[in-house]
């Protein structure tokens, strides 16, 4: 049964010294939703995501995250741009170990979690590859694996298909579709909904300080 997992109640948010980008706006997200957040450039799509993630605090309104059975759900987040240097000399395994490694000598994957998550994103063969040798799509899947490492109940993604070719985009969305089928709640920001249309269950349009729900069949009007 679907339960409310995120609710935003009369949220107003403004960046310092600027008019609000979201005003008195509401939103409810349920377990098992695959939500796509659309909107023009600068329409506060990422801001909305960051408010839900707790990275930005709204000036007005309340945010509730969790259901009656999951008080504080685990969250995975794939940011829009990872501010890293493409030729950084690290292997895929080393990057994923960063999440739970404690010191220089400790084995970073005692429970086989990294192996399992790499299998999930279809990169099991690449664990010892240097980041610089991976394609854009593979790199994005490494960061997706990182977001999935702690077995989150909600996965947030910010423009995950940016700069990916069509094939890599399809591969990524196919993976997200699989995770969604397994019960993961997914919330993703995008400016190009075409390739994600078949997979998503809800479309939200953010513009002029408001969030509007668009029925799945009507999205082309946007």
């Amino acid at each position, binding site marked *: 049964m679907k339960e409310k997992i995120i609710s935003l109640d009369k949220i107003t948010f403004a960046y310092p010294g600027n008019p609000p980008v979201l005003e008195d706006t509401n939103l409810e997200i349920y377990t098992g939703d695959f939500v796509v957040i659309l909107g023009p450039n600068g329409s506060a799509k990422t801001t909305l995501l960051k408010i839900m993630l707790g*990275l930005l605090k709204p000036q007005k309104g309340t945010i509730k995250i969790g259901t009656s059975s999951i008080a504080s759900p685990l969250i995975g*987040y794939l*940011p829009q741009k*990872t*501010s*890293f*240097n493409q030729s*950084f*000399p*690290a*292997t895929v395994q*080393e*990057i994923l170990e*960063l*999440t739970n*490694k*404690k*010191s*220089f*000598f400790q084995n970073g994957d005692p429970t086989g979690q990294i192996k399992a998550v790499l299998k999930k994103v279809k990169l099991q063969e690449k664990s*010892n590859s*240097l980041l610089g040798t991976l394609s854009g799509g593979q790199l994005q899947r490494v960061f997706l694996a*990182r977001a999935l490492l702690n077995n989150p109940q909600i996965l947030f993604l910010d423009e995950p298909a940016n700069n990916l070719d069509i094939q890599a985009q399809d591969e990524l969305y196919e993976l997200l579709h699989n995770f969604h089928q397994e019960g993961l709640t997914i919330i993703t920001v995008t400016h190009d909904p075409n390739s994600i249309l078949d997979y998503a269950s809800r479309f939200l349009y953010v513009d002029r300080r408001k969030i509007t729900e668009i029925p799945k069949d009507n999205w082309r009007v946007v």
Partner: protein
Amino acid sequence: MPEILQYTFMQKAFVVGLLVGGLCPSIGTFLVLRRLSMVGETLAHTSLAGVLLGILWGISPLPFALLVSILIVFVLEKLRKIFPNYAELSLAIIMSAGLGLAVVLMEFTNASDTSVTGLLFGSIITLSNQDILLIGLLSFLSILVIIRYYREFFYLTFDEEGARLAGIAVERFNYFLLFLTTMVIAIGLRIVGALLISSLMIVPVAASLLLSRGFKQTLLFAVLIGILSVLIGLVTSFYLGLAPGGAIVLSSVIIFLIILLFKKIHP
């Protein structure tokens, strides 16, 4: 025992040299990969001013240099906030100030030419027992910190935003890295010299980057190349009467060039 190891000053030089050879590139790996190669140079120049101030006021120069550099770290971070888009500008300002002050202080101190040359280019005969004790202590502390906070430094170096999201106190570890840099400079100042110590933080890392297949490997290869450079440098400096700093840094550059050539032949 070979002749070179029969002298107490050479024994001391080897002990300190090996510590410096290992520690400089390990800190250097984090600095280079964060594109902060110039930080070592800047802090080395200010610590030179610190040493001279120590000599001038009759205070033990090494701890005083450390103190001055730690103070400079705070100034550096403040300046970086004033010029957030010109990271290298604050480094250039501090470096000029440090070197300028050092030059002026050299006029005031009655340091002999040889001791000034030693400070600038390193010397193997100036290590006192007190220096050794302090260097040992600082090295122990640095190694402990690097091993304990390896993950945090690695995360910060790779992806600052991600580190912040993972709950790492990014600001605190930024300071931590700079403090470690000042400690390692204080450790190496006597033997490699203020003008060359930062090269030992950079050149072995550059050589290691040509070979490594991962982050841990980069760190380990850089440390090995650093130690090898120091060993070759000290031996040649002993037998040929060269300034050890120059001999050590040139050794590291030669190792870098050999690896580069090897990579060209066997890509």
